[in-house]
């Protein structure tokens, strides 16, 4: 119930703005909703969702595939972790938007640019959280494992992994949400400017649709898409948060401190 307070407030604010400013520049919530329904019927909304979804999932999988093993590897040595931490925190703290022209220059107007920009956003939180999680495993418990002569593999599977999985999932929550953010922003930025980019427009995802709505001055479509993107961003975050809390409760984990993370 309390989750509906903010959406209700925002819709009330929307109507207030319409009352103040009129509907010349502002679509009504009903018009935006109807436009999205049309989008589903005509297929372009679902196509946009499919493309953005595919790019986000690929970016998230790459971030996890690199970030988790690397995070555990770096976290297992406090010396390596101490050395690498400032680089990772600096990378995490720098808004990746500033690096967009470099990404565009190196990777050009291709589909993998969306995915790469998503990975740039999502990799570092996964890495940082996993590293902190690996370091947060209780040394006492690790000593017990050693005294029981558990192999490295068994120590990881039965001690390190269960202790750290909650925090790793928190990192994946950040990572997935930020991958989505990176992909959508890249889709939008990639489609700015005409010419070659117009080919991409037809192949773009939600971000490209936003730009198309803006360029054709279709306010209902623009506002509808913005709401769809907001809902997806918040839902992804909420879903991953729920998964993380549920796993943490079952497994019982240590809560390590993740350096420099407050996105």
């Amino acid at each position, binding site marked *: 119930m309390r989750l509906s307070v903010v959406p209700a407030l925002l819709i009330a604010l929307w109507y207030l703005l319409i009352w103040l400013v009129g509907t010349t520049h502002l679509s009504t919530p009903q018009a935006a909703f109807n436009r999205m329904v049309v989008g589903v019927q005509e297929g372009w909304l679902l196509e946009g969702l499919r493309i953005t979804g595919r790019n986000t999932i690929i970016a998230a999988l790459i971030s996890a595939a690199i970030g988790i093993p690397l995070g555990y590897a770096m976290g297992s040595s406090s010396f390596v972790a101490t050395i690498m931490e400032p680089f990772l925190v600096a990378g995490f703290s720098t*808004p990746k938007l*500033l690096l967009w022209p*470099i990404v565009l220059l*190196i990777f050009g107007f291709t589909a993998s640019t969306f995915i790469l920009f998503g990975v740039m956003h999502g990799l570092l939180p996964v890495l940082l959280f996993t590293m902190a999680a690996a370091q947060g495993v209780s040394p006492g418990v690790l000593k017990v494992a050693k005294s029981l002569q558990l192999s490295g593999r068994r120590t990881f599977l039965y001690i390190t992994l269960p202790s750290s999985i909650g925090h790793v999932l928190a990192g994946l929550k950040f990572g997935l949400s930020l991958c989505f953010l990176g992909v959508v922003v890249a889709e939008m930025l990639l489609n700015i400017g005409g010419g070659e980019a117009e080919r991409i427009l037809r192949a773009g995802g939600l971000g490209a649709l936003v*730009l198309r709505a803006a360029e054709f001055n279709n306010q209902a479509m623009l506002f509808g898409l913005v709401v769809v993107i907001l809902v997806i961003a918040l839902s992804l975050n909420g879903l991953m948060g729920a998964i993380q809390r549920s796993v943490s409760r079952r497994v019982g984990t240590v809560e390590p401190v993740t350096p420099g993370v407050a*996105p």
Partner: protein
Amino acid sequence: MSIRDSKYAPPVIRWLIVIIGIGALELAVQKGWVDDFVIAAPSSLVVHLLDVAFVSELLRHGLQTGKAAALAFVAASITGILLGFVLFKLPRLFNAVELYVQSYYAVPIFVLYPVAVLFLGISVWSIFLIAFAWAVGAMISETVLALQAVDSSLVKYARSIGLKPVRVATKVQFPAAIPGIINGLKLCLVYSIAGVVGSEFILSTQGVGRLISDHYNSFRTEEMYASIVLLVVAVLLVHIALYTIERRVRARRGLT
């Protein structure tokens, strides 16, 4: 004493990593292993830094960006601190909005730029709005976190000596939360700069973002890299400066 125990080993090793990395990139470009149109040699950064025309143009645009970012920062930090304080003081309201405040980082604020242009046109005010929207979220959540982290025994003591709630808030809670608020200011400033520059990539006729965009569009790769590197360095310096201030404030108060 092994190298791992030395206090100086980590910073030295970090500098070595940076130097070797830059050296490897320079070598790769000079040898032609990477296309020098796509990746500029690090040495070109030094060359451009010595070019008065380049530096003065960068500074001129930097001043425009700085003004917009400063405006967004001031507005976002004041609004964010006030709203954060209000949310902290009204736990029921905070309970209702908490999930959204915590999820603010996941929202692609930049997607709102067409909406900003719709209302405010292609002007500095659209840029201000995007930067403000991006920065204020971080400020609100960091302010609430900082206030929540204040030791409750301080508050209890203040009440026990008869301080009225307003005074408890202004004389005890808020000052105790200052280190966390400085952390929030750090994020607020970084996001203000990023929001302004990002918007300038597409919306502006001036500013560092516009300059970088011009370099990109006219294939001046080296100038583009030089501008971006200097911009990122500036953002990192802001980060380090405010982080250092926060650490000093915490140390002076005996907090870790």
